[in-house]
């Protein structure tokens, strides 16, 4: 599974980081999110799917 955060849509709500802290990192400056790696480790897939479902801006995609 691959994950992507759309930087145009992300507004720094930080819910993805709450749900999958190992898969996302937040900017120190404004809290906007980026994936730690494009490829999601198998043991984090469920957490990342929950992060996708929790994003208010629907800014995260998995494929």
């Amino acid at each position, binding site marked *: 599974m691959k994950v992507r955060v759309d930087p145009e*849509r992300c*507004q*720094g*709500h*930080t*819910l993805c*980081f*709450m749900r999958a802290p190992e898969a996302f990192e*937040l*900017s*120190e*400056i*404004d*809290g906007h999110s980026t994936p730690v790696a494009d490829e999601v480790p198998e043991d984090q897939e469920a957490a990342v799917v*929950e992060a996708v*479902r*929790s*994003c*208010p*801006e*629907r800014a995260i995609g998995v494929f």
Partner: protein
Amino acid sequence: MSDDDEARKHPRVHFDRHAPEYRDRFEEETRGFHEGCPLAWSDTYGGHWVAAGNRELLAFARAREKLSNDHDVHGERRGYQGINIPAPARGRGIRGGFLEMDPPEQRAYRDALNPYLSPAAIARWIPFIDEVAHACLDERIESGRIDFVDDLANIVPAVFTLAMMGIPLKKWELYNEPAHAGVYTPPHSPETARVVEAHRAMLKDIGATLHEVRANPRPGLADALARMEIDGRAPSDGDLVGALALLIGGGFDTTTALTAHALEWLSQHPAERDRLSRERATLLDPATEEFLRYFTPAPGDGRTVAEDCEIAGKEFREGDRLWLSWAMANRDPAVFPDPDRVDLARPGNRHTAFGLGIHRCIGSNVARTVFKRMLLHVLDRAPDFVCDPGGAVHYETIGVIQGMRHLPATFTPGPRLGPGLAETLETLQRICDEQGLAEPVTVRKAEAKIR
């Protein structure tokens, strides 16, 4: 207005969120919106659209260049009325900070303030927040009686907000009265004259703070605004006072409202309270988001349509007013199964309590952190608290903030941990000054050292 123009304003509802009965009818009215008209026209307050569905709010967030937050208080642009419907009488002549601005101006303010308010920036303050919360509880802990609003949830957000701004902590009461009473006091109240006076005193102190930090710079949000430039020019003092007043309004009343409602709910559901305390490692984050969803302290924001356009299947004309109801969207059954139930572990909780899009509450990390720290200390030091339903006072109207004025409770008394509030604030002021706690995270990375 032509018949054609009237015809597009459909479906029609009567929506008056400032009416006292709205609080009691909120769930019923909200269901009505979701069952047939998540985007409707109401003739109230000069006529405006009401968006109550999650999908609709997302569509508006993504059409941001077609909507304006501008409040043209001096009649210099297109006369737009900002984010309140109707525009409030109080504070007339002052824009509501960057929440009543559009990009690129709004962006400049956010860029200046974000490094003070990011998750990393706020995490540094946790020992400070804990110390204030403990001092508040120490004042009441031996008596076994507390008013969660007056004695805790009003104080911690106020003191912390002033600390971040670079305003002396001892001034928290000067700011506290207008920040809360200014929201809950209706215009016809006999208290209004007093509240207006308190509001004026607050604005005067904000202005004085700006002059002080220019003459003798000290770190904080006030300093960041005093130094900022937009295209090489400093904003007007009026706009800077508006921005600082927005930070006060956003920092004080909202977190108080969330904390009071959550504590009242936990008192009514003691088994859930005990579960939250026991399973805090996994439950505190989702429970906080669920309280945000369910109580949505800031229930919505207004916008003005900036050009003729179609959004979410509706035709809009330039100048149309629009109410984005974060609170009603948070009960949208298409996104939140069983939406009127509190589920502390709710999955997929993509709530809109902090808004959507470029105006996402800039203090969201403050609100979450202060709420969680206050809640944890209550759960640890007064775990068997029982709120007194007879003494709980909710805001008469919830059109601006869904808040509470009082929430008295009793609990098994316990021991003090330190000195009271006044002495603690003196100590914390010294620590703020010595350690430069209010510097942005780009300057100071270290956590506050209290002991």
